[in-house]
């Protein structure tokens, strides 16, 4: 494989930014944000350069590696700190640094009033570095470092305003649920080492076919657990909604465009594992399908604009995971949806931030309305993102989502019909809840009071939104023209046989568009044509109530894990106190007790001691006499 000594700069630039901003402290307050943005942009430039280099090489020699140093070497366990840039990781590198740089620019203005802006940018740079390490690591263990690194950055950024107790709790919740997923990744690495003797991607790939299917299934399921935690998939989805406590640019970058899609990356990167483990692969698809419905249903009931978008993110990642679970047929489309989603969802989150910026940080959509007139640029950019996500041709989401639905339907048999049907239904619900967001925010009558003075955001904020909107419009077309992305990624995946076509593509598109039209129409009838109350109505259906509470995810987690855990903890504390330490203290008390009872024999009268001595001596003599007799 070709080596390239330039890869390290991708990570080194933002890492340098993070460290210098953190270590210099207040001294860097004046220019810290500029340095961070420049370094992020520099990383993007390195990425572009690497892409151009890669395009110049023949297909088989496109992947490049760089070994930095020997990281861990004990016995047969050898892991180098080395980087791998191939067709898959370059997509992520450009997405991370590109969208990342835009969000840096946006944040300069968005965070300008925050006294801790420098720290915010340091964390953003830290995130970029960790995320790049995640996608560039050439082994599961290197990936693990990035994997937890982004978790840390996410924790720090969700809790950026942790002086609010609820925000601090939200960040802790995210970290802990992520750790459960990380445990899965640990297991996967341990199984891989114990059974295959290697933890590098290439090593596992080589051995994937000679290992037993049970082994590969175990690895696959554990990787899925990891992906589920990081990508907020069912059943570890509960942290994503709360993660919206972070500043909005963070939600856009980490909890929409990049970090939460790491699970998709992991599964697609491990395609050789899942191709050798059909059960695990099916499980991936099922988890994706469940989550896409889950997120979509929650999205219909949320009044908080960021939480509605978070639910939508969860649902869209469900699509990607579903695609990744469809095997070689779906990998490329999962990645394509990931890229297009990166554009339109980041754009919409920035739009939401722009709305909040103009509305004194109000997040309740029921207090919005008619903002189209006050924020025309936000309206247009958000609207383009909206058209992309619901899948209206020729916007980006149409291409990627349509392909996913089609691939799901063509997966064959009952499986194909169920998965494809779920994806189709999900498209309809997506259209409904996104239309609801659009209407409530921009086009319905105004519901805010006169203290609010909505205004358009400054150029530093709307320019990134505009660029992302361009991406939302064009990226789908560009990536799917002549199956560009599919052919680009193809060398990484195994060949897959011709699949059966359940329905011709044009019919699938027609069906999908019909679902979208129904969803849009329902939303228009319910919110545009009838009056929206500024306070969420209480007399709603049972389903709405449950959906508002995220389908009871927190209640279930609390009942199943948190409370029993708390009980177990307090029981163990008491057990330690009374039983174990009690036994120790008991031994001490026995010693002291027997001492004090024996003390009574010591009367203090010399004569009684003398008597005892005498009796003792007599007894001794008697004993000797008896024995010798």
């Amino acid at each position: 494989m070709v080596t390239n000594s330039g890869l390290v700069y991708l990570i080194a630039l933002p890492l340098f930014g993070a460290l210098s901003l953190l270590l210099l402290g207040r001294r860097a307050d004046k220019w810290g944000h500029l340095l961070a943005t420049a370094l992020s942009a520099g990383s993007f430039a390195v990425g572009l350069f690497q892409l151009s280099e890669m395009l110049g090489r023949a297909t088989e020699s496109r992947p490049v590696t760089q070994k930095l140093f020997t990281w861990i070497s004990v016995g047969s366990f050898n892991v180098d700190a080395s980087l791998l840039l191939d067709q898959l990781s370059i997509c992520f590198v450009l997405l991370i640094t590109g969208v990342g740089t835009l969000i840096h620019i946006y944040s300069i203005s968005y965070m300008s009033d925050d006294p801790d802006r420098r720290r915010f940018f340091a964390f953003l740079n830290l995130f970029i570095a960790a995320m790049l390490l995640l996608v560039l690591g050439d082994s599961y263990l290197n990936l693990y470092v990035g994997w937890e690194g982004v978790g840390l950055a996410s924790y720090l950024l969700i809790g950026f305003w942790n002086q609010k107790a609820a925000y601090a709790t939200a960040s802790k919740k995210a970290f802990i649920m992520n750790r459960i997923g990380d445990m899965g990744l640990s297991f996967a690495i341990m199984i891989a080492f114990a059974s295959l003797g290697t933890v590098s991607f290439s090593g596992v790939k080589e051995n994937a076919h000679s290992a037993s299917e049970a082994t590969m299934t175990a690895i696959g399921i554990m990787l899925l657990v990891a992906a589920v935690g990081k990508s907020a998939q069912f059943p570890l989805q509960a942290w994503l909604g709360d993660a919206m406590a972070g500043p909005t640019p963070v939600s856009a970058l980490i909890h929409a465009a990049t970090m939460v899609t790491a699970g998709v990356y992991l599964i697609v990167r491990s395609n050789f594992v899942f191709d050798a483990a059909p059960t695990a692969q099916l499980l991936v698809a099922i988890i994706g399908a469940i989550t896409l419905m889950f997120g979509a249903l929650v999205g219909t009931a949320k009044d908080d604009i960021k939480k509605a978008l978070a639910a939508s993110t969860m649902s869209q990642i469900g699509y990607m995971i579903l695609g990744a679970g469809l095997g070689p047929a779906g990998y490329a489309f999962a990645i394509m949806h990931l890229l297009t989603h990166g554009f339109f969802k980041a754009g919409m989150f920035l739009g939401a931030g722009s709305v909040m910026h103009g509305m004194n940080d109000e997040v309740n959509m029921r207090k919005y309305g008619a903002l189209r007139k006050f924020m025309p640029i936000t309206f247009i950019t958000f609207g383009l993102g909206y058209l992309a996500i619901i899948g209206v041709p020729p916007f980006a989401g149409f291409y990627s989502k349509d392909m996913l639905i089609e691939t799901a339907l063509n997966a064959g048999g009952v499986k194909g019909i169920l998965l494809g049907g779920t994806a189709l239904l999900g498209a309809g619900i997506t259209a409904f809840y996104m239309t609801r967001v659009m209407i409530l925010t921009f086009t319905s009558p105004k519901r805010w009071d006169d203290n609010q003075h909505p205004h358009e955001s400054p150029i530093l904020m709307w320019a990134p939104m505009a660029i992302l909107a361009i991406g939302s419009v064009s990226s789908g077309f560009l990536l799917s023209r002549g199956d560009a992305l599919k052919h680009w990624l193809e060398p990484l995946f195994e060949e897959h046989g011709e699949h059966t076509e359940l329905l011709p593509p044009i019919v699938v598109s027609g069906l999908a568009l019909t679902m979208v039209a129904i969803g849009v129409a329902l939303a228009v009838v319910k919110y545009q044509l009838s009056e929206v109350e500024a306070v969420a109505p209480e007399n709603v259906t049972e389903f709405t109530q449950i959906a508002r509470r995220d389908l009871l995810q927190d209640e279930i987690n609390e009942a199943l894990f948190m409370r029993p855990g708390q009980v177990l903890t307090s029981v163990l504390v008491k057990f330690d106190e009374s039983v174990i330490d009690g036994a120790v203290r008991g031994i001490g008390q026995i010693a002291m007790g027997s001492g004090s009872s024996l003390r009574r024999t010591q009367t203090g009268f010399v004569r009684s001691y003398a008597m005892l001595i005498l009796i003792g001596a007599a007894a001794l003599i008697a004993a000797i006499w008896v024995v010798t007799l």
Partner: protein
Amino acid sequence: MNLANMNLLTLSMLLPLLGTVALAFTPKTSVLLTKQIALATTVLVAVVGILMAINFDFKSPGFQFVESRPWVPAFGINYALGIDGIALVLILMSVLLTPIVVIAGWNESEGGRWSAKTFYSLILVLETMMIGVFASTDVFLFYVFFEAMLVPVYFLIGGFGSGERAAAAVKFLLYSLFGGLLMLASIIGIFVMSTRYGNRTFDITTLAGLHTVLTPMMENFLFLGFFIAFAIKAPLWPMHTWLPDAAKSATPGTSVLLLGVLDKVGTFGMIRYCLTLFPEASKTFTPLIITLAVISILYGAFLAIGAKDIKRLIAYTSISHFGFITMGIFAMTTQGLSGATLYMFNHGFSTAALFLVAGFMISRRNSSTIADFGGLQRVTPIMAWSFFIAGMSSLALPGLSSFVSEFLVLVGTFTRYPVAAVIATFGIVLAALYILIPVQRALHGPTTPGNENLTDLNLREKVAIAPVIAIIVVLGFYPSPILNIINPAATTVISQQGFTDPAPTISEGK
């Protein structure tokens, strides 16, 4: 100049004693001079330690810097010193931590029962013992250091601690003496057996062959005498209850030495004495020990989650960590053993960081109850971030040193005892809880009353904590320097046991 011939080990043990002599001639009133002498001595010892590491030939697996003089020839007892890679890293850790403890605990001697002179003399004597206990290659000499170490620590806790310091010191002493007594019985047993079967000696290299003539029953009893002593020291569940009390009552600096160095004697002893002298018995008891280790991991973590006092919390996290170390040792794989040794080294620094920052916090607030703190991140950012990084190291975040060791232990255990490794891995989720809960309560949230006017770390405190954090971060990304020292020694120990690492299952089918 050939440093290998210079008796560096004896030198490093003599220096602190010379320091105490100097302290003896210091007037009681000049506290500052006392502290300066103590600091200078510990720094000098650290330099000697580093010299030792530089001159250590880490390709050869045997003992180096060997010294031997007859001590009690009648019983075959020698003053015999020598270090392999495992001992070297532990000595290195000890001599690096001691000056840091002196700097960080600059004012710890105040409020004690005796003068600063006594405090620093005790610390220096303890340092000599710490080096001696890791460097002994004579079982009897080891025993002497092992027991003698209790004395300075007893007085450090009982004389300079806080709260119920006397009770905690007695508890610590009695627990340790009980273990030491069992070990003494075993040592006498070894002496009797070695006399009966050949030459009377306490030299561990010679004794390594003793097990071939022992009956299994005899070997098991001798093993248990050592193991129980080490399990109390380490401490392993259910012999752990002295640790939280001692750690809570001791000064933060003493706690660092107690948890960071003294407890390592237990796990070090398991490798050096239990595994080497009694390989068959080690195998017999491995299932039991691994079970106890896994219980320690989870039990310590749950109690840490439930702890209300920050020092007790750190003590419980250490019980969990010692569970990992013990599990790695008895997994009998090179990854497990190297990982466990690296874990000992890393745990020393990450616990030091936690305890020192906790000490800074406690000294400012005059309370060690977590609930008394709140919102420190906005008031004292540097202190808060130091605590956070130390906490991240404790929960083994990748990129920090403890991750490498924890993962090696898990991987090494998984190849031989997958079930134990899987259960132990749940500890990493609990670790996130026991670190993030105090972080949230003490550092995040609104600043609570009583904390508004706390001052941030001063220069001395920054100087103390900075090298610890630097080591944690650097070794996280580049652990090779330490791993290279450990690996040959670990490989030797494993091969002496007659073990080879399990081959990947895939190659068995071929």
